[in-house]
């Protein structure tokens, strides 16, 4: 209780604020006395104590308030003070309550007693658990060297423990699926072109002020980040034209003015043809390109010959539609939002170049630093906190699994696939211990079969987890972490169009024997003998961070837990400068050329499906985050399983019906869990689609277990992006198994001769 005593934001103040807002709209009738409740306890969440905090149901981290009644969290709402989301949170944000109270939560430290992956455990004490982890870390480091330690991390919970691995000196102190299975190639392309992380955790695309929004397989809407979706919808409401490029008729496609159902794997061909058309017809922003960009001639040359007609054939699109898209963008420049996309590790080789093409298109249209285009972050000042840990970057070993294989990997850490490989083969050096925090790697890194085999070779594997995920099941020790609702973390700043500063603080005390990530990291560091974490608790360093912003926790909470700042997103042309070596936008990237990689985008065709198979593509359910929320009681009830989208003409040809249950078999013979069909004209016949994250294989996830199918378990082959080592997720092919019958899928849109066909080398019946 004492933690909450400082909170000054009373429920009544909040209600008064809301009433004020509503009265100005003037449509809410006043109470009618006969129906009002006479009892003292107000109904619903009314009268609850409200504690401001920050969501972590996904990494967007919307400001929230936790509503507490009788010591229990009853509801979560957006923090009305937040200029980004206001009182709103998405389905997942609303469902944090059921993460906190999930009966499947890991309640105590656990030690494996059966085989790895078998799921047999015994309860142990925190002392025992931490001692064992510390002992193994020291032992592995001593026996095999610092780089034998590897850390997979994601999200807020992982940040403190990362300091330990960094201090231990391993180059593998961070290995984030968030980059290698998500935004890595996109982030790299934009960093090199525009000099900042235009797309990473945050995305600086001013859709709210755009006249045209151009989405290349961005599933915005199915992929929900509240303020981002709000800006997108605001843009559409203001009359922005929407162009959507996607093999599937997504929620965004349904709102589009122009929809281009592209052949999977050919996006770069489309973008090159658009560049060529825009350049050769003088539709680009010559003034911007001449004065503020470098490398134009190289881009012009790279796009030369990429005609609309050529792209129409490669991409299986109408030439008129491609032209229409070019004209819409050019006529409305510079106020055009060319979205960098998200989760874009699709085809391996061409991913970085594809994103570079999107960045170049923005620049050609002058859509940088202007309303409606890409914009610049507004950093919000806070105090810099060091934990007294290792401040220097780790020294790389003689052969690094980062830059010695992928020249730009070290910007992001160690490529996940390379860690798995090194663990399996011992080359270029042995990796013998994995620590995992905040990420279910088995359901995230491609080829889970390979990941599980690698785990078998480890001396030790441990994780900090909230739920008994597949990865937890494969661990030797599980440390039960507190949820975001039970802990302080850090001061969070938001540097988009409505900047603010806020802080995560507990809305309830940790349940069971769960402990906060800071406490766990600090205790572990002590046991390893590291001089680390020179603060006693989170509040101490939070005060330090706030001091740098001229605040204290008490002061911040007096203001509703959040303070706002003015944004500075746009730049006058005369002052236009970006943070690249030349200070200009780099249309062609010399750093890439120096490493014998394409300095300008090039279309590298990805092999077409083998005969009888179609490409497996995946996306998001707006109700779920990764594989993290399928066990959430409320979210599970809204969307318990995924469905396989299959083209209606294709389905008819092979006698498949909507709603019937099938199994998928991929090119390597791996089979999925059963999944129901969604037969629709809204997908091309050369691909099938499912939302990611379903089909849990951990029995301990009692609600999500075996519900729907996992795309991940069908991704048994992947190609590396040569820039950073990100892994491809759209290079697997499937056919359908119904009952005992394997159904080959006929080819209804054959690829042109320019696109090679994938050849199946292995045959077999793995499952």
């Amino acid at each position, binding site marked *: 209780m004492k933690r909450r005593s400082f909170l000054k934001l009373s429920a009544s103040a909040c209600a008064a604020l*809301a009433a004020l807002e509503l009265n100005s709209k003037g*449509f809410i009738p006043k*109470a*009618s006395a006969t129906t009002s409740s006479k009892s003292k306890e107000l*109904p619903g969440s009314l009268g609850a104590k409200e504690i401001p905090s920050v969501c972590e149901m996904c990494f967007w981290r919307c400001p929230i308030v936790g509503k507490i009644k009788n010591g229990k969290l009853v509801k979560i*709402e957006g923090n009305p003070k937040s200029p980004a989301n206001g009182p709103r949170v998405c*389905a997942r944000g609303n*469902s944090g309550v059921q993460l906190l109270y999930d009966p499947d939560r890991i309640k105590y430290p656990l030690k494996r007693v059966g085989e790895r992956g078998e799921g047999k455990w015994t309860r142990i004490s925190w002392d025992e658990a931490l001692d064992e982890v510390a002992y193994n870390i020291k032992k592995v480091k001593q026996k095999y060297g610092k780089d034998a330690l590897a850390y997979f991390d994601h999200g807020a919970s992982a940040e403190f423990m990362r300091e330990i691995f960094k201090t231990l000196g391993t180059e593998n102190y961070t290995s984030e699926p968030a980059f290698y299975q998500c935004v890595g190639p996109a982030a790299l392309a934009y960093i090199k072109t525009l000099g900042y992380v235009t797309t990473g955790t945050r995305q600086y695309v001013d859709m709210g002020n755009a006249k045209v929004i151009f989405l290349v397989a961005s599933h915005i809407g*199915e992929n929900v980040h509240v303020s981002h979706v709000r800006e997108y919808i605001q843009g559409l409401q203001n009359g922005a034209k929407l162009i959507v490029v996607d093999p599937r008729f997504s929620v965004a496609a349904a709102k589009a003015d122009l929809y281009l159902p592209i052949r999977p794997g050919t996006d770069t061909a489309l973008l090159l043809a658009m560049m060529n058309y825009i350049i050769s017809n003088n539709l680009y922003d010559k003034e911007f390109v001449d004065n503020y960009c470098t490398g134009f001639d190289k881009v012009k040359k790279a796009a030369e010959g990429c005609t609309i007609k050529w792209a129409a054939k490669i991409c299986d699109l109408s030439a008129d539609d491609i032209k229409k898209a070019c004209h819409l963008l050019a006529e409305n420049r510079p106020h055009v939002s060319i979205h960098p996309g998200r989760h874009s590790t699709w085809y391996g080789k061409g991913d970085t170049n594809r994103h570079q093409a999107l960045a170049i298109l923005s620049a050609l249209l002058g859509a940088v630093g202007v309303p409606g285009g890409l914009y610049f972050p507004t950093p919000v000042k806070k105090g810099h906190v060091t934990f007294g840990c290792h401040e220097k970057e780790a020294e790389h070993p003689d052969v690094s699994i980062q830059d010695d294989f992928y020249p730009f990997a070290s910007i992001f850490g160690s490529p996940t696939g390379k860690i798995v490989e090194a663990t399996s083969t011992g080359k270029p050096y042995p990796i013998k211990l994995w620590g995992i925090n905040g990420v279910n790697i088995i359901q995230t890194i491609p080829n889970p079969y390979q990941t599980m085999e690698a785990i078998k070779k480890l001396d030790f594997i441990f994780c900090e987890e909230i739920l008994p995920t597949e990865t937890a099941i494969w661990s030797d020790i599980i440390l039960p972490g507190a949820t975001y609702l039970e802990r302080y973390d850090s001061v969070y700043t938001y540097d988009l169009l409505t900047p603010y500063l806020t802080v995560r603080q507990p809305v309830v005390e940790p349940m069971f024997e769960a402990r906060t990530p800071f406490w766990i990291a600090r205790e572990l560091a002590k046991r390893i003998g590291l001089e680390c974490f020179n603060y006693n608790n989170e509040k101490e360093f939070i005060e330090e961070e706030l001091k740098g912003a001229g605040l204290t926790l008490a002061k911040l909470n007096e203001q509703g837990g959040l303070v706002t700042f003015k944004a500075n997103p746009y730049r006058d042309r005369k002052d236009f400068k970006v943070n690249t070596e030349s200070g200009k936008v780099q249309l062609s990237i010399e750093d890439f050329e120096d490493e014998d990689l394409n300095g300008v985008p090039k279309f590298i065709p990805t092999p077409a499906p083998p005969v009888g198979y179609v490409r497996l593509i995946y996306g998001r359910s707006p109700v779920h985050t990764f594989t993290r929320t399928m066990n959430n009681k409320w979210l599970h009830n809204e969307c318990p399983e995924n469905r396989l989208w299959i083209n209606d003409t294709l389905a008819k040809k092979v006698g498949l019906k909507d709603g019937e249950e099938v199994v998928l078999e991929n090119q390597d013979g791996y089979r999925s869990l059963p999944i129901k069909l969604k037969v629709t004209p809204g997908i091309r016949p050369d691909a099938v689609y499912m939302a990611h994250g379903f089909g849990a294989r951990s029995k301990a996830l009692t609600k999500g277990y075996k519900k729907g199918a996992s795309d991940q378990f069908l991704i048994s082959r992947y190609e590396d992006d040569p820039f950073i080592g990100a892994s491809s997720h759209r290079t697997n092919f499937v056919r359908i198994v119904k009952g005992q019958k394997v159904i080959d899928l006929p080819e209804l849109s054959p690829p042109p001769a320019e696109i090679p066909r994938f050849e199946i080398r292995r045959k077999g019946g793995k499952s």
Partner: protein
Amino acid sequence: MSQLAMVIDLNRCVGCHACAIACRAEWSVPVPYKRNWVKSAGPEKTPKGMAFTFYPGLCNHCDEPKCTTVCPADPEEREFKSKDGKVKKIEIRATYKDPFTGAVLIDKSRCIGCGACVEACPYGARYLNEELDDPKADKCTFCTERLEHGLEPACVRTCISGARIFGDLSDKNSSVSKLIKDKGAIRLVSEKVNIGPNVYYIGKEKDLYLLKKKFAPTERTWENVMAPVRRNILISAFKSLKVTA
């Protein structure tokens, strides 16, 4: 007389289900019951092009609610007061339409949990909460309790894209009145079922076409409930239940 109403803008809706969960949290609606839902329709070809849209639904607080007429509870006189002090006395059963707000509500103290109203609703907007020792009918109240505290309905407050607009139809200047007048909002009705729902939808023509095709009720569900006969059967059934219990 006021009539509370909601307009749902499908051009804004992305189908995120925040509304459904906020409602569940606000009113502790047990899984799997729903007062507030999101269903999807499509992608499917329509005469106006390919459509893919959502059906965010809730109780329609109809002009001519059928749920209130099938309720077997004895009518009782009740006094209602409006916000400006007007008083009205009407006879109500255990479920009734508030004469001043137009909200269709349930008097839980009088509900016997027979489920007649649940079956009568052509929108499936009601459920019988069997999690309770003494099951009661339940459904959306337009968050009447929150309105009394000057707050919007929970689903409106959480809607991430501002797709839910709530207000009073008797006020010609309210956002709902204006949207219905200017944006061609439709009600989810069919030739066979038109009982004056007060949830309206706006959106692209193709989306509204698909919405109606998939989700407009076509079955006069309340006619099957056969109110008077059923009432007698129910009452005797309940009496015998009470005796045996």
